[in-house]
């Protein structure tokens, strides 16, 4: 597979480490009433669609950036790649 890195261009996926569902960016509030349930869902109930999937890849053998890749799990076609840090900010991760 080839991942088109926003800064570095096309790179072989072998340079990357896969994590999974990009929702892992949305870490719950540890002080919420139902924090335990929220963290359970966050840690264990991930999207697993047969189709487009927003997922986290880490460019370990590259610039060490985390990316959010939109990839179809039935065809492996990649339609979008973003820097995870930008995504995290746009999703309002504080600090």
């Amino acid at each position, binding site marked *: 597979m080839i991942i088109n890195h926003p*800064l570095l261009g096309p790179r072989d996926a072998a340079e990357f480490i896969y994590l999974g569902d990009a929702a892992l960016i949305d870490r719950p509030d540890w002080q919420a009433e139902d924090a335990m349930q929220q963290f359970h869902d966050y840690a264990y109930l991930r999207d697993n669609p047969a189709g487009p999937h927003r997922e986290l890849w880490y460019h370990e053998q590259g610039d060490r950036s985390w990316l959010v890749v939109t990839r179809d799990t039935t065809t492996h076609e990649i339609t979008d790649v973003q820097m995870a840090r930008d995504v995290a900010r746009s999703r309002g991760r504080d600090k």
Partner: protein
Amino acid sequence: MPDYTLISTPPLAGYDKIFGTTRLHAPADLAIVSIALPLGAEDAALKAVKSAYGAALPEPGRSTLTKEGARLVRLGSDQAFVIFTHATPDAERAVATRLKGTAYTTDQTDVWTGLEITGPDSRTVLERICPVDLHRDAFAEGDAARTVMEHLGALIVRTGEDTFLLLSASSSANSFLHAVETSIRNTS
């Protein structure tokens, strides 16, 4: 006068071999210092780099050779290397002083080991281990890429027409050299 003195024995020190038209050697006194751009204060850091080295920090994936012969390599959005010739173990201080605290610096000299390969067949050799497209038009002079070769992380910089600087971890320097030499033997 201290009772004990420490002797420097970096891996591959003095390595220099010619294989047909290909030369492979380990540059002496190669110092590497990383620069991290502080969040929110990137511009100040970039400005400091420019005034300190007379050259702007290039885009990620590119490098610039400064007048004094230092190479600024942009590795990512907020990280860069300064690669220069410097014998004593205080390269980090040398860079930090110049940047006047506008950026975070870390000495990387001994983290890496350097090999320079040059010759008309250098691409044929590297094609056996390097997944990056090194074609003249695809990988211009000054281009730099971090990638993996034979299970080893590596930084490759095109420093001349047919010349490439390869950096890999110093602890596995012998294995890295073995990988490059094997490529030369297999393609000669």
